[in-house]
């Protein structure tokens, strides 16, 4: 029987669903990375579904399993790139997938230069982070300078780094599409709470099903491929001026809200795709 680990640091509804569903197809067990050491290159599993909420815990468990040739969903490369907005934008841009116009700024001066090229308002985000936590908008050079200065006080190099980006009219919303093994399962739209421009569910956004279309699907699948994602979500902006743009890739996707809005169960699709993959 195939043996798969569901690797976690905390257990959300998603992980419970995965464990239950995968368990119907194979021998699935929980692996809590907070209490167990993982030898690089030790074997014994066929696959590992990587689910820690912490990006580095996710990447490091994936890499440790890969050292032994275990099939990982997602692989560490995908997790590292998806978990880092700047690396992800660069990968997407290199694959000619449309993204928001973006600059890398290492310091305050560079951020101001980027914004003066883009025009205000600009969005400033850190490469690493989620739930909208390090995503800000600056309406003027004064505000940007203040913000960028504060950023330089953060303790980690990655959260001091800045992506300075054009502010896009998206109706304060984005579209999240879920991809498993080269197939797009469906999409939802997340619409920001009143008075908030960021459409993160953690910031109160509402979700609804969003009907797919070939143009969107084509872009989404190319994005998933560009980051070598087996099970990823692709977050897309829809703008009047530029059409669809990929804003973000998630390598450890939450799908509770997606399931509720669409009725599609990604855990089931993942189990089937994994089975197929491992049979090969």
């Amino acid at each position, binding site marked *: 029987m195939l043996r798969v680990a569901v690797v976690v640091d905390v257990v959300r509804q998603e992980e419970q669903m995965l464990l239950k569903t995968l368990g119907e197809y194979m021998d699935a067990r929980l692996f809590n990375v907070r209490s167990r050491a993982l030898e690089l290159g030790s074997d014994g599993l066929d696959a590992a579904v990587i689910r820690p909420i912490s990006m580095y815990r996710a990447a490091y468990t994936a890499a440790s399993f890969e050292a032994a040739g275990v099939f990982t969903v997602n692989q560490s490369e995908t997790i590292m790139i998806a978990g880092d907005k700047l690396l992800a934008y660069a990968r997407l841009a290199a694959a000619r997938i449309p993204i928001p116009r973006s600059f890398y700024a290492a310091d305050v001066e560079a951020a101001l230069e980027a914004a003066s090229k883009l025009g205000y308002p600009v969005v400033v985000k850190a490469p690493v*982070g989620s739930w909208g936590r390090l995503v800000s908008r600056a309406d003027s050079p004064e505000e940007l300078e203040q913000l960028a200065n504060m950023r330089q006080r953060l303790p980690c190099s990655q959260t001091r780094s800045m992506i300075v980006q054009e502010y896009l009219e998206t109706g304060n919303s984005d579209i999240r599409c879920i991809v498993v093994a080269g197939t797009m399962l469906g999409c939802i739209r997340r619409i920001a709470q009143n008075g908030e421009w960021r459409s993160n569910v*953690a910031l109160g956004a509402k979700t609804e099903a969003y009907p797919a279309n070939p143009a969107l699907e084509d872009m989404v699948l190319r994005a998933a491929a560009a980051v070598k994602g087996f099970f990823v979500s692709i977050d897309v902006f829809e703008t009047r001026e530029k059409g669809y743009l990929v804003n973000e890739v998630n390598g*450890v996707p939450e799908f509770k809200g997606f399931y509720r809005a669409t009725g599609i169960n990604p855990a089931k699709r993942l189990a089937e795709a994994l089975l197929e993959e491992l049979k090969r």
Partner: protein
Amino acid sequence: MPTLKCPVCGGPVEVPDDAMPGELIDHDCGVTLEVVKKDDGSFELKPFEGVGEDWGE
């Protein structure tokens, strides 16, 4: 559904029957609690340390 005692405020916390170690529960006293499995197989609750800079969806 067993009721456990919050280690911070002493108040009651309802824990689902099928709880798994690693599940998080927000409590009224202002603390996030984590379900932990004891050596004897039973559950207890521990305050959960805050999330780091790289945690997210």
